[in-house]
Protein backbone atom coordinates (compact mmCIF):
# COMPACT_ATOMS: atom_id res chain seq x y z
CA UNK A 1 0.00 0.00 0.00
CA UNK A 2 2.67 2.47 -0.95
CA UNK A 3 1.09 4.74 -3.51
CA UNK A 4 0.74 7.87 -1.44
CA UNK A 5 -0.75 10.14 -4.12
CA UNK A 6 -3.65 7.79 -4.52
CA UNK A 7 -4.69 8.26 -0.92
CA UNK A 8 -4.42 12.04 -1.18
CA UNK A 9 -6.69 11.96 -4.21
CA UNK A 10 -9.35 9.91 -2.43
CA UNK A 11 -8.89 11.48 0.98
CA UNK A 12 -11.46 14.26 0.63
CA UNK A 13 -14.22 11.75 -0.02
CA UNK A 14 -12.86 9.39 2.60
CA UNK A 15 -12.35 12.02 5.31
CA UNK A 16 -15.65 13.81 4.90
CA UNK A 17 -17.82 11.01 3.46
CA UNK A 18 -18.71 12.88 0.31
CA UNK A 19 -20.65 10.74 -2.17
CA UNK A 20 -21.65 11.22 -5.79
CA UNK A 21 -25.25 11.55 -6.93
CA UNK A 22 -26.31 10.80 -10.50
CA UNK A 23 -28.29 13.77 -11.77
CA UNK A 24 -30.07 11.53 -14.25
CA UNK A 25 -31.52 8.84 -11.95
CA UNK A 26 -30.79 10.33 -8.49
CA UNK A 27 -28.94 7.20 -7.29
CA UNK A 28 -26.25 8.01 -4.69
CA UNK A 29 -22.86 6.31 -5.05
CA UNK A 30 -20.19 5.81 -2.43
CA UNK A 31 -17.34 5.11 -3.14
CA UNK A 32 -17.52 7.98 -5.65
CA UNK A 33 -17.91 7.11 -9.33
CA UNK A 34 -17.34 9.11 -12.50
CA UNK A 35 -20.10 7.36 -14.42
CA UNK A 36 -23.46 5.92 -13.30
CA UNK A 37 -23.56 2.13 -13.89
CA UNK A 38 -27.28 2.37 -14.68
CA UNK A 39 -27.36 5.49 -16.87
CA UNK A 40 -23.91 5.17 -18.51
CA UNK A 41 -23.33 8.06 -20.96
CA UNK A 42 -26.58 9.75 -19.92
CA UNK A 43 -24.87 10.49 -16.59
CA UNK A 44 -21.81 12.21 -18.07
CA UNK A 45 -21.47 15.70 -16.63
CA UNK A 46 -24.33 15.04 -14.21
CA UNK A 47 -22.45 13.29 -11.39
CA UNK A 48 -22.57 15.73 -8.45
CA UNK A 49 -21.02 15.64 -4.99
CA UNK A 50 -23.36 15.14 -2.07
CA UNK A 51 -22.71 14.97 1.69
CA UNK A 52 -23.59 11.71 3.46
CA UNK A 53 -25.05 11.68 6.98
CA UNK A 54 -22.65 8.90 8.00
CA UNK A 55 -25.58 6.98 9.48
CA UNK A 56 -26.84 3.58 8.49
CA UNK A 57 -27.38 -0.01 9.59
CA UNK A 58 -25.36 -3.21 9.77
CA UNK A 59 -25.97 -5.51 6.77
CA UNK A 60 -23.37 -8.03 7.94
CA UNK A 61 -20.27 -8.14 10.13
CA UNK A 62 -17.29 -10.30 11.01
CA UNK A 63 -14.62 -10.32 13.70
CA UNK A 64 -11.29 -10.54 11.89
CA UNK A 65 -8.51 -12.52 13.61
CA UNK A 66 -6.13 -13.18 10.72
CA UNK A 67 -5.00 -9.66 9.80
CA UNK A 68 -2.66 -8.12 7.21
CA UNK A 69 0.48 -6.37 8.59
CA UNK A 70 -1.09 -2.88 8.61
CA UNK A 71 -3.85 -4.09 10.97
CA UNK A 72 -1.87 -6.39 13.31
CA UNK A 73 -2.14 -4.01 16.27
CA UNK A 74 -5.93 -3.79 15.93
CA UNK A 75 -6.58 -7.56 16.08
CA UNK A 76 -9.27 -8.74 16.52
CA UNK A 77 -11.28 -6.04 14.75
CA UNK A 78 -14.83 -5.83 13.48
CA UNK A 79 -15.37 -5.40 9.76
CA UNK A 80 -18.88 -4.72 8.51
CA UNK A 81 -21.04 -3.95 5.54
CA UNK A 82 -23.02 -0.80 6.36
CA UNK A 83 -26.07 0.27 4.37
CA UNK A 84 -26.06 4.06 4.58
CA UNK A 85 -29.35 5.94 4.90
CA UNK A 86 -28.74 7.61 1.52
CA UNK A 87 -28.62 4.20 -0.22
CA UNK A 88 -25.09 2.91 -0.82
CA UNK A 89 -23.61 -0.04 1.08
CA UNK A 90 -19.96 0.31 2.12
CA UNK A 91 -17.25 -1.69 3.88
CA UNK A 92 -15.83 -0.35 7.14
CA UNK A 93 -14.84 -1.19 10.69
CA UNK A 94 -17.07 -0.97 13.76
CA UNK A 95 -15.15 0.17 16.87
CA UNK A 96 -15.75 0.65 20.60
CA UNK A 97 -18.41 -2.08 20.58
CA UNK A 98 -18.79 -5.10 22.82
CA UNK A 99 -18.70 -7.97 20.30
CA UNK A 100 -21.76 -9.48 21.96
CA UNK A 101 -23.74 -6.33 21.16
CA UNK A 102 -23.18 -6.64 17.41
CA UNK A 103 -26.23 -7.60 15.43
CA UNK A 104 -27.36 -7.44 11.81
CA UNK A 105 -29.83 -4.57 11.45
CA UNK A 106 -28.42 -2.42 14.30
CA UNK A 107 -27.95 1.31 13.67
CA UNK A 108 -24.46 2.81 13.40
CA UNK A 109 -22.93 6.26 12.84
CA UNK A 110 -19.50 7.25 11.57
CA UNK A 111 -16.51 8.48 13.57
CA UNK A 112 -13.14 9.73 12.31
CA UNK A 113 -10.28 7.42 13.29
CA UNK A 114 -6.86 6.07 12.44
CA UNK A 115 -7.53 3.24 9.97
CA UNK A 116 -4.15 1.64 9.27
CA UNK A 117 -0.42 1.85 9.93
CA UNK A 118 2.08 0.92 7.28
CA UNK A 119 4.93 -0.62 9.27
CA UNK A 120 7.58 -0.15 6.58
CA UNK A 121 6.99 3.48 5.65
CA UNK A 122 5.46 4.48 8.98
CA UNK A 123 2.54 6.14 7.20
CA UNK A 124 -0.62 6.33 9.28
CA UNK A 125 -3.86 6.67 7.37
CA UNK A 126 -7.12 8.07 8.68
CA UNK A 127 -10.72 7.69 7.62
CA UNK A 128 -14.17 6.69 8.82
CA UNK A 129 -15.09 3.89 11.14
CA UNK A 130 -18.47 3.24 12.74
CA UNK A 131 -19.85 3.01 16.28
CA UNK A 132 -23.18 1.58 17.42
CA UNK A 133 -25.82 4.30 17.88
CA UNK A 134 -27.10 4.79 21.40
Amino acid at each position, binding site marked *: *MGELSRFWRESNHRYRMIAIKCGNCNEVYFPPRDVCPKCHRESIGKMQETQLSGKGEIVSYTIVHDAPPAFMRQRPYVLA*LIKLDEGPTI*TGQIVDADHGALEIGKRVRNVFRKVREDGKSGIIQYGYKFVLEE
Partner: protein
Amino acid sequence: MITLNDVYIIGAGETKFGELWERSLRELATEAGLRAIESAGIYSKDVEVLYGSNTLGGAINAQNDIGGLISDFTGLAHNNIPAISVEASTASGGAAVREAYLGIRSGEYNVAAVGGVEKLTDLYGSEVLDLTSTLLDSEWEGFFGATPAAIAALVAQKYMKDFNVDHESLAMMSVNDHMNASKNPDAHYRNVLTVEGAVSSTMVAEPLGMMDCSPASDGAAAIILASEEYVKKNKMNGIKILASAVAQDYLALHSRKSIYRFDSTVVAARNAFKKSGLKPDDISFAEIHDSYSIYGLIELEDLGFAKKGEAKKLLPDDIKLDGRIPINPSGGLKAKGNPFGATGVGQFVEAFQQLNGKAKDRQIKSPANALLHSMAVSGSTSVVHILEGN
Protein backbone atom coordinates in the same frame (compact mmCIF):
# COMPACT_ATOMS: atom_id res chain seq x y z
CA MET B 1 -22.18 -18.70 -42.73
CA ILE B 2 -19.23 -19.04 -40.43
CA THR B 3 -18.52 -22.53 -39.14
CA LEU B 4 -16.86 -22.84 -35.77
CA ASN B 5 -14.53 -25.68 -34.84
CA ASP B 6 -15.35 -28.06 -32.02
CA VAL B 7 -12.67 -28.17 -29.33
CA TYR B 8 -11.33 -31.22 -27.51
CA ILE B 9 -9.04 -31.77 -24.53
CA ILE B 10 -6.44 -34.31 -25.65
CA GLY B 11 -3.99 -34.24 -22.76
CA ALA B 12 -3.66 -33.15 -19.14
CA GLY B 13 -1.02 -33.15 -16.42
CA GLU B 14 -0.23 -31.54 -13.11
CA THR B 15 2.29 -31.44 -10.30
CA LYS B 16 1.45 -32.28 -6.74
CA PHE B 17 -0.20 -29.31 -5.00
CA GLY B 18 1.17 -28.27 -1.62
CA GLU B 19 3.96 -26.41 0.11
CA LEU B 20 6.70 -27.09 -2.38
CA TRP B 21 9.51 -25.03 -0.88
CA GLU B 22 12.26 -26.59 -2.98
CA ARG B 23 10.54 -26.19 -6.35
CA SER B 24 10.67 -23.01 -8.46
CA LEU B 25 7.86 -21.47 -10.48
CA ARG B 26 9.49 -22.47 -13.75
CA GLU B 27 10.21 -26.04 -12.63
CA LEU B 28 6.61 -26.58 -11.59
CA ALA B 29 5.22 -25.14 -14.83
CA THR B 30 7.60 -27.18 -16.97
CA GLU B 31 6.80 -30.42 -15.14
CA ALA B 32 3.03 -29.97 -15.60
CA GLY B 33 3.45 -28.89 -19.22
CA LEU B 34 5.59 -31.86 -20.21
CA ARG B 35 3.15 -34.24 -18.50
CA ALA B 36 0.29 -32.77 -20.50
CA ILE B 37 2.24 -33.09 -23.78
CA GLU B 38 3.11 -36.70 -22.95
CA SER B 39 -0.48 -37.46 -21.97
CA ALA B 40 -1.67 -36.09 -25.33
CA GLY B 41 0.84 -38.22 -27.21
CA ILE B 42 2.06 -35.22 -29.20
CA TYR B 43 5.39 -33.37 -29.42
CA SER B 44 6.15 -29.82 -28.36
CA LYS B 45 6.57 -28.89 -32.02
CA ASP B 46 2.86 -29.68 -32.57
CA VAL B 47 1.77 -26.90 -30.18
CA GLU B 48 0.76 -23.72 -32.04
CA VAL B 49 0.01 -21.37 -29.14
CA LEU B 50 0.52 -21.24 -25.37
CA TYR B 51 -1.65 -19.54 -22.74
CA GLY B 52 0.00 -19.08 -19.34
CA SER B 53 -2.19 -18.59 -16.27
CA ASN B 54 -1.05 -16.97 -13.03
CA THR B 55 -2.37 -14.53 -10.44
CA LEU B 56 0.27 -13.06 -8.12
CA GLY B 57 3.63 -14.03 -9.64
CA GLY B 58 4.64 -10.41 -10.12
CA ALA B 59 3.96 -9.54 -6.49
CA ILE B 60 5.01 -12.73 -4.71
CA ASN B 61 7.75 -14.23 -6.87
CA ALA B 62 8.96 -11.06 -8.63
CA GLN B 63 8.11 -12.72 -11.94
CA ASN B 64 5.62 -11.28 -14.40
CA ASP B 65 4.77 -12.67 -17.85
CA ILE B 66 4.18 -16.29 -16.89
CA GLY B 67 3.32 -17.11 -20.51
CA GLY B 68 6.79 -15.98 -21.51
CA LEU B 69 8.43 -17.90 -18.67
CA ILE B 70 6.63 -21.17 -19.46
CA SER B 71 7.33 -20.73 -23.18
CA ASP B 72 11.03 -20.24 -22.44
CA PHE B 73 11.52 -23.23 -20.13
CA THR B 74 9.32 -25.72 -21.97
CA GLY B 75 11.31 -24.86 -25.10
CA LEU B 76 8.29 -23.58 -27.01
CA ALA B 77 9.98 -20.18 -27.38
CA HIS B 78 12.57 -21.86 -29.60
CA ASN B 79 9.79 -22.35 -32.18
CA ASN B 80 8.61 -18.74 -31.79
CA ILE B 81 4.96 -19.68 -31.30
CA PRO B 82 2.81 -17.08 -29.50
CA ALA B 83 2.72 -17.15 -25.68
CA ILE B 84 0.02 -15.12 -23.95
CA SER B 85 -0.21 -14.47 -20.19
CA VAL B 86 -3.72 -14.51 -18.75
CA GLU B 87 -4.58 -12.91 -15.41
CA ALA B 88 -8.16 -12.87 -14.12
CA SER B 89 -7.56 -12.87 -10.37
CA THR B 90 -8.13 -16.36 -8.96
CA ALA B 91 -10.17 -17.25 -12.08
CA SER B 92 -7.05 -17.03 -14.26
CA GLY B 93 -7.07 -20.79 -14.90
CA GLY B 94 -10.61 -20.95 -16.27
CA ALA B 95 -10.04 -17.72 -18.20
CA ALA B 96 -6.84 -19.04 -19.83
CA VAL B 97 -8.55 -22.26 -20.93
CA ARG B 98 -11.36 -20.18 -22.40
CA GLU B 99 -8.88 -18.07 -24.40
CA ALA B 100 -7.32 -21.24 -25.80
CA TYR B 101 -10.79 -22.63 -26.56
CA LEU B 102 -11.67 -19.46 -28.49
CA GLY B 103 -8.39 -19.61 -30.39
CA ILE B 104 -9.18 -23.09 -31.68
CA ARG B 105 -12.90 -22.53 -32.08
CA SER B 106 -12.23 -19.56 -34.35
CA GLY B 107 -10.08 -21.66 -36.65
CA GLU B 108 -6.86 -19.76 -35.92
CA TYR B 109 -5.13 -22.72 -34.22
CA ASN B 110 -5.40 -26.50 -34.22
CA VAL B 111 -3.40 -27.25 -31.06
CA ALA B 112 -3.14 -25.04 -27.97
CA ALA B 113 -1.44 -25.56 -24.60
CA VAL B 114 -2.63 -23.99 -21.35
CA GLY B 115 -0.30 -23.89 -18.37
CA GLY B 116 -1.28 -22.54 -14.94
CA VAL B 117 1.20 -22.08 -12.12
CA GLU B 118 1.37 -20.36 -8.74
CA LYS B 119 3.84 -20.33 -5.88
CA LEU B 120 2.23 -18.76 -2.82
CA THR B 121 4.62 -20.05 -0.16
CA ASP B 122 7.63 -17.90 -1.14
CA LEU B 123 6.64 -15.29 1.45
CA TYR B 124 5.47 -15.30 5.08
CA GLY B 125 1.75 -15.79 5.68
CA SER B 126 0.97 -12.19 6.69
CA GLU B 127 2.76 -10.83 3.61
CA VAL B 128 0.81 -13.22 1.39
CA LEU B 129 -2.38 -12.04 3.09
CA ASP B 130 -1.45 -8.44 2.24
CA LEU B 131 -1.00 -9.40 -1.42
CA THR B 132 -4.09 -11.61 -1.75
CA SER B 133 -6.09 -8.70 -0.32
CA THR B 134 -5.05 -6.65 -3.37
CA LEU B 135 -7.39 -8.93 -5.36
CA LEU B 136 -10.24 -7.06 -3.63
CA ASP B 137 -10.94 -3.35 -4.21
CA SER B 138 -7.75 -2.09 -2.53
CA GLU B 139 -9.00 1.44 -1.87
CA TRP B 140 -12.49 0.70 -0.56
CA GLU B 141 -12.25 -2.83 0.87
CA GLY B 142 -8.59 -3.63 1.57
CA PHE B 143 -7.90 -0.12 2.92
CA PHE B 144 -10.33 -0.74 5.81
CA GLY B 145 -8.89 -4.14 6.76
CA ALA B 146 -10.84 -6.43 4.46
CA THR B 147 -9.13 -9.68 3.45
CA PRO B 148 -10.57 -12.34 1.12
CA ALA B 149 -11.51 -14.41 4.19
CA ALA B 150 -13.15 -11.42 5.91
CA ILE B 151 -15.25 -10.76 2.81
CA ALA B 152 -16.28 -14.44 2.73
CA ALA B 153 -17.18 -14.14 6.42
CA LEU B 154 -19.45 -11.14 5.71
CA VAL B 155 -21.21 -13.23 3.08
CA ALA B 156 -21.46 -16.19 5.48
CA GLN B 157 -22.85 -14.24 8.46
CA LYS B 158 -25.75 -12.81 6.46
CA TYR B 159 -26.44 -16.04 4.53
CA MET B 160 -26.47 -18.15 7.69
CA LYS B 161 -28.90 -15.75 9.40
CA ASP B 162 -31.31 -15.32 6.49
CA PHE B 163 -31.51 -19.03 5.58
CA ASN B 164 -31.02 -20.49 9.06
CA VAL B 165 -27.85 -22.38 8.10
CA ASP B 166 -25.43 -23.52 10.82
CA HIS B 167 -21.64 -23.80 10.80
CA GLU B 168 -21.93 -27.61 10.60
CA SER B 169 -23.54 -27.30 7.15
CA LEU B 170 -20.67 -25.13 5.93
CA ALA B 171 -18.17 -27.59 7.40
CA MET B 172 -19.65 -30.43 5.35
CA MET B 173 -18.22 -28.82 2.19
CA SER B 174 -14.71 -29.00 3.68
CA VAL B 175 -15.28 -32.53 4.99
CA ASN B 176 -16.34 -33.67 1.50
CA ASP B 177 -13.25 -32.03 -0.04
CA HIS B 178 -10.92 -33.74 2.44
CA MET B 179 -12.56 -37.14 1.94
CA ASN B 180 -12.05 -36.91 -1.84
CA ALA B 181 -8.53 -35.49 -1.51
CA SER B 182 -7.56 -38.44 0.68
CA LYS B 183 -7.88 -40.45 -2.56
CA ASN B 184 -5.95 -37.97 -4.72
CA PRO B 185 -2.14 -38.30 -4.69
CA ASP B 186 -1.77 -34.77 -6.13
CA ALA B 187 -3.73 -33.15 -3.27
CA HIS B 188 -2.23 -30.65 -0.81
CA TYR B 189 -4.04 -32.23 2.18
CA ARG B 190 -4.81 -35.93 2.26
CA ASN B 191 -6.10 -36.18 5.82
CA VAL B 192 -9.76 -36.97 6.52
CA LEU B 193 -11.60 -34.17 8.33
CA THR B 194 -14.62 -34.49 10.64
CA VAL B 195 -17.42 -31.95 11.04
CA GLU B 196 -16.46 -31.55 14.72
CA GLY B 197 -12.83 -30.95 13.75
CA ALA B 198 -13.85 -28.42 11.12
CA VAL B 199 -16.16 -26.30 13.31
CA SER B 200 -13.65 -26.13 16.16
CA SER B 201 -10.72 -24.93 14.04
CA THR B 202 -8.93 -21.64 14.81
CA MET B 203 -11.01 -18.60 13.89
CA VAL B 204 -9.86 -16.64 10.83
CA ALA B 205 -12.79 -14.24 10.41
CA GLU B 206 -15.89 -15.18 12.39
CA PRO B 207 -17.85 -17.33 11.70
CA LEU B 208 -15.19 -18.86 9.41
CA GLY B 209 -12.34 -20.90 10.83
CA MET B 210 -9.20 -22.28 9.21
CA MET B 211 -11.08 -25.38 8.06
CA ASP B 212 -13.52 -23.16 6.13
CA CYS B 213 -10.65 -21.63 4.13
CA SER B 214 -8.62 -23.04 1.25
CA PRO B 215 -4.86 -23.12 1.90
CA ALA B 216 -2.14 -21.12 0.15
CA SER B 217 -0.66 -23.76 -2.17
CA ASP B 218 2.07 -24.11 -4.75
CA GLY B 219 1.48 -26.12 -7.88
CA ALA B 220 1.05 -26.23 -11.63
CA ALA B 221 -1.42 -27.79 -14.06
CA ALA B 222 -1.53 -27.97 -17.85
CA ILE B 223 -3.85 -29.19 -20.59
CA ILE B 224 -3.64 -29.54 -24.37
CA LEU B 225 -6.61 -28.55 -26.53
CA ALA B 226 -7.08 -29.52 -30.18
CA SER B 227 -9.56 -28.95 -32.97
CA GLU B 228 -11.96 -31.67 -34.12
CA GLU B 229 -10.09 -31.80 -37.44
CA TYR B 230 -6.78 -32.48 -35.66
CA VAL B 231 -8.34 -35.11 -33.38
CA LYS B 232 -9.93 -36.96 -36.32
CA LYS B 233 -6.85 -36.76 -38.53
CA ASN B 234 -4.69 -38.25 -35.78
CA LYS B 235 -7.35 -40.77 -34.65
CA MET B 236 -7.30 -39.44 -31.07
CA ASN B 237 -9.83 -39.70 -28.27
CA GLY B 238 -10.66 -36.37 -26.74
CA ILE B 239 -12.96 -34.86 -24.17
CA LYS B 240 -15.21 -32.37 -25.94
CA ILE B 241 -15.72 -28.89 -24.53
CA LEU B 242 -19.46 -28.42 -25.02
CA ALA B 243 -19.59 -24.87 -23.73
CA SER B 244 -17.45 -22.08 -22.33
CA ALA B 245 -18.83 -18.94 -20.70
CA VAL B 246 -17.52 -16.08 -18.58
CA ALA B 247 -19.31 -13.25 -16.76
CA GLN B 248 -18.43 -10.32 -14.53
CA ASP B 249 -19.88 -8.59 -11.47
CA TYR B 250 -18.82 -5.55 -9.45
CA LEU B 251 -15.32 -6.03 -8.01
CA ALA B 252 -16.34 -4.94 -4.50
CA LEU B 253 -18.88 -7.04 -2.61
CA HIS B 254 -20.61 -3.92 -1.24
CA SER B 255 -21.62 -2.76 -4.74
CA ARG B 256 -23.36 -5.99 -5.77
CA LYS B 257 -27.11 -6.48 -6.15
CA SER B 258 -26.99 -9.31 -3.59
CA ILE B 259 -24.20 -10.21 -1.18
CA TYR B 260 -24.97 -13.93 -1.23
CA ARG B 261 -25.71 -14.47 -4.89
CA PHE B 262 -22.76 -14.45 -7.28
CA ASP B 263 -24.32 -12.96 -10.40
CA SER B 264 -21.14 -13.64 -12.38
CA THR B 265 -21.67 -17.34 -11.62
CA VAL B 266 -25.41 -17.21 -12.31
CA VAL B 267 -24.89 -15.61 -15.73
CA ALA B 268 -21.88 -17.71 -16.76
CA ALA B 269 -23.71 -20.92 -15.79
CA ARG B 270 -26.90 -19.87 -17.56
CA ASN B 271 -24.96 -19.11 -20.74
CA ALA B 272 -22.95 -22.33 -20.55
CA PHE B 273 -26.09 -24.45 -20.10
CA LYS B 274 -27.77 -22.64 -22.99
CA LYS B 275 -24.80 -23.19 -25.32
CA SER B 276 -24.46 -26.86 -24.36
CA GLY B 277 -28.17 -27.63 -24.53
CA LEU B 278 -27.86 -29.34 -21.14
CA LYS B 279 -29.57 -28.78 -17.78
CA PRO B 280 -28.08 -29.07 -14.27
CA ASP B 281 -29.65 -32.55 -14.01
CA ASP B 282 -27.50 -33.69 -16.96
CA ILE B 283 -24.25 -32.98 -15.08
CA SER B 284 -22.52 -36.07 -13.65
CA PHE B 285 -20.10 -34.16 -11.40
CA ALA B 286 -18.78 -30.65 -10.86
CA GLU B 287 -15.54 -29.04 -9.77
CA ILE B 288 -16.45 -25.75 -8.09
CA HIS B 289 -14.38 -22.84 -6.78
CA ASP B 290 -14.97 -23.37 -3.04
CA SER B 291 -12.13 -21.15 -1.81
CA TYR B 292 -14.29 -20.78 1.33
CA SER B 293 -16.84 -23.33 2.54
CA ILE B 294 -19.63 -20.72 2.34
CA TYR B 295 -18.81 -20.09 -1.32
CA GLY B 296 -19.26 -23.79 -2.04
CA LEU B 297 -22.86 -23.67 -0.79
CA ILE B 298 -23.65 -20.46 -2.66
CA GLU B 299 -22.12 -21.79 -5.88
CA LEU B 300 -24.26 -24.97 -5.72
CA GLU B 301 -27.23 -22.62 -5.79
CA ASP B 302 -25.94 -20.16 -8.38
CA LEU B 303 -24.84 -22.96 -10.74
CA GLY B 304 -28.39 -24.33 -10.66
CA PHE B 305 -27.99 -27.44 -8.46
CA ALA B 306 -30.13 -26.05 -5.60
CA LYS B 307 -32.53 -23.18 -4.95
CA LYS B 308 -31.24 -20.09 -3.10
CA GLY B 309 -30.78 -20.92 0.57
CA GLU B 310 -31.25 -24.66 0.03
CA ALA B 311 -27.74 -25.94 -0.77
CA LYS B 312 -27.62 -27.43 2.74
CA LYS B 313 -30.19 -30.02 1.59
CA LEU B 314 -27.53 -31.50 -0.74
CA LEU B 315 -25.09 -31.92 2.15
CA PRO B 316 -23.50 -34.23 2.94
CA ASP B 317 -24.81 -37.21 0.93
CA ASP B 318 -25.77 -35.81 -2.48
CA ILE B 319 -22.31 -34.28 -3.07
CA LYS B 320 -20.31 -37.44 -2.25
CA LEU B 321 -18.50 -39.42 -4.96
CA ASP B 322 -21.47 -41.81 -5.18
CA GLY B 323 -24.10 -39.12 -4.58
CA ARG B 324 -26.62 -37.49 -6.90
CA ILE B 325 -24.25 -34.67 -7.91
CA PRO B 326 -20.67 -35.40 -6.80
CA ILE B 327 -18.84 -32.15 -6.00
CA ASN B 328 -15.08 -31.72 -6.19
CA PRO B 329 -13.97 -35.32 -6.71
CA SER B 330 -10.41 -33.91 -6.84
CA GLY B 331 -10.63 -32.63 -3.27
CA GLY B 332 -11.59 -29.09 -4.26
CA LEU B 333 -9.88 -25.88 -3.27
CA LYS B 334 -9.99 -26.74 0.43
CA ALA B 335 -8.05 -30.00 0.21
CA LYS B 336 -6.60 -30.53 -3.27
CA GLY B 337 -5.38 -27.01 -2.72
CA ASN B 338 -5.56 -23.52 -4.16
CA PRO B 339 -2.49 -22.45 -6.16
CA PHE B 340 -4.46 -19.59 -7.75
CA GLY B 341 -3.27 -19.62 -11.38
CA ALA B 342 -3.14 -23.43 -11.46
CA THR B 343 -6.43 -24.05 -9.64
CA GLY B 344 -8.81 -23.63 -12.58
CA VAL B 345 -6.54 -25.57 -14.95
CA GLY B 346 -6.27 -28.32 -12.34
CA GLN B 347 -10.05 -28.74 -12.47
CA PHE B 348 -9.64 -29.74 -16.14
CA VAL B 349 -6.96 -32.26 -15.20
CA GLU B 350 -9.40 -33.89 -12.77
CA ALA B 351 -12.25 -33.86 -15.29
CA PHE B 352 -9.98 -35.33 -17.98
CA GLN B 353 -9.13 -38.24 -15.67
CA GLN B 354 -12.72 -38.74 -14.50
CA LEU B 355 -14.26 -38.61 -17.98
CA ASN B 356 -11.63 -41.07 -19.25
CA GLY B 357 -12.35 -43.43 -16.34
CA LYS B 358 -8.83 -43.04 -14.97
CA ALA B 359 -9.46 -41.44 -11.56
CA LYS B 360 -8.75 -44.72 -9.72
CA ASP B 361 -9.93 -44.70 -6.07
CA ARG B 362 -12.04 -41.60 -6.56
CA GLN B 363 -13.57 -42.59 -9.92
CA ILE B 364 -17.19 -41.52 -10.35
CA LYS B 365 -19.29 -44.26 -11.93
CA SER B 366 -19.59 -43.74 -15.73
CA PRO B 367 -19.75 -39.94 -15.79
CA ALA B 368 -21.27 -38.38 -18.92
CA ASN B 369 -20.84 -34.62 -18.46
CA ALA B 370 -18.79 -32.41 -16.16
CA LEU B 371 -19.19 -28.77 -15.10
CA LEU B 372 -16.12 -26.75 -14.09
CA HIS B 373 -16.38 -23.43 -12.26
CA SER B 374 -13.48 -21.02 -11.74
CA MET B 375 -14.04 -17.77 -9.84
CA ALA B 376 -12.21 -14.55 -8.98
CA VAL B 377 -11.68 -14.00 -5.27
CA SER B 378 -15.14 -13.03 -3.93
CA GLY B 379 -17.15 -13.57 -7.11
CA SER B 380 -16.24 -10.70 -9.44
CA THR B 381 -15.45 -13.01 -12.39
CA SER B 382 -16.78 -16.52 -13.03
CA VAL B 383 -15.81 -18.91 -15.79
CA VAL B 384 -17.93 -22.01 -16.45
CA HIS B 385 -17.09 -24.87 -18.79
CA ILE B 386 -19.19 -27.93 -19.59
CA LEU B 387 -17.42 -31.04 -20.87
CA GLU B 388 -18.69 -34.22 -22.49
CA GLY B 389 -16.99 -37.58 -22.01
CA ASN B 390 -16.29 -40.22 -24.61
